[in-house]
């Protein structure tokens, strides 16, 4: 589609931004599903807060992604996405915004990791998913706040304060459940083992990751893998849990190939805007 190397860099920046934005949105939506269902009121509110932090981060990133899209020349802009609703808008020459990116893209245009779209299942599975993702997100954003792209750097710096708290929350729950009762220990270990196969993808560099790292915009994610492992290991030690040993890793989310769960999630999340376009409340 884009032959000009400058255009290609723009496209990679768009994909890179969407990878992060989609992680934030999908993770945030998943956590928001606990609202009204938390095991105790205090944790219900805690999770809703964390969900809102993610939605806030997603908004900043989608706003940036939309401005990147709108800056691409009108011919190339037609080919950015494979979602009919969004393309109809683009082909009319209209500018797109954060809401269009969140609500008018189909699953095959989403670039989030498979980990964040996995269902909540129960408290242990939710904590395990958050623990893996928060640990990654914290290290990733710590490096990203030095990005040569000032918008990305600013979003990373702001998000990092929130993610610092998310990581504390999920790590403490890992310890509380692991070092709790026999049942809580077993169930959090099962959840950690089960979700482990989705962690490999966190450290798999896409074309966008490689290109943005080369530009000084992104992060060399292979570099933070060791730190991630050490951080996970030290929390698991304290929780008297063991690091899962599985070596087979599931992948595809970053390349827009998703598990069946994402379709259901989007169907619920996007329904209103698809059925009643531009509806506000």
């Amino acid at each position, binding site marked *: 589609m884009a032959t000009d190397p400058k255009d290609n860099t723009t496209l990679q920046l768009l994909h890179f931004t969407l990878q992060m934005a989609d992680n934030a949105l999908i993770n945030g939506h998943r956590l928001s599903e606990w609202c*009204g*269902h938390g095991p*105790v*009121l*205090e*944790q219900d*509110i*805690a999770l809703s*807060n964390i969900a809102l932090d993610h939605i806030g981060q997603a908004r900043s990133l989608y706003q940036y992604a939309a401005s990147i899209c709108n800056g691409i020349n009108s011919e190339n802009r037609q080919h950015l996405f494979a979602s009919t609703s969004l393309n109809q808008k683009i082909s009319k020459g209209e500018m797109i915004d954060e809401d269009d990116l969140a609500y008018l893209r189909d699953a095959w245009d989403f670039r989030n990791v498979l980990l964040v779209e996995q269902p*909540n*299942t*129960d*408290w242990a599975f939710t904590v395990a998913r958050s623990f893996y993702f928060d640990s990654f997100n914290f290290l990733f954003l710590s490096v990203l706040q030095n990005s040569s792209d000032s918008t990305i750097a600013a979003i990373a710096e702001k998000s990092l304060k929130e993610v610092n708290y998310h990581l*504390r*929350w999920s790590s*403490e729950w890992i310890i*509380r459940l692991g070092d709790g009762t026999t049942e809580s220990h077993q169930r959090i270990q099962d959840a950690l083992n089960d979700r482990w196969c989705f962690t490999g993808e966190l450290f798999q560099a896409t074309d966008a990751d490689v290109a943005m790292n080369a530009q000084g915009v992104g992060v060399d994610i292979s570099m933070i893998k060791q730190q991630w492992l050490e951080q996970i290991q030290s929390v698991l030690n304290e929780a008297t849990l063991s690091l899962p040993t599985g070596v087979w890793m599931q992948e595809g989310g970053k390349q827009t190939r998703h598990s069946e769960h994402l379709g259901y999630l989007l169907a619920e999340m996007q329904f209103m805007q698809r059925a009643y376009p531009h509806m506000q409340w």
Partner: protein
Amino acid sequence: MKNIFHRYGDYGDREAAGGENTHHDTSNEWPLWEVFIRSKAGLDHKHAGSLHAADANMAIENARDVYTRRMEGVSIWVVESKYVHASDPADAEMLYEPANDKIYRHPTFYNLPDELKHM
């Protein structure tokens, strides 16, 4: 079926689904904590409410989530409710009524200069 609702769902779901109505046992519940929030530097911590938490760390974090998410505070104190000792409401007559007819205990009989605003 029962197991699912035991794992995930609102209070009451289990009963609504025909499950056993288990006796409410408080021995497994987290202890209650009183929360005090300082709204800005220099002011005192004011009682904001109470919440359940497993330990002091968790109580502070829960308090942050429950009581400061609309920027109500810059500092949090928590104390486990069982350590707060209260006066007995039955003693109210003895404790507070004697003050009723002793208005001379208020410093209201002085003429204050106009420049004094905050007395």
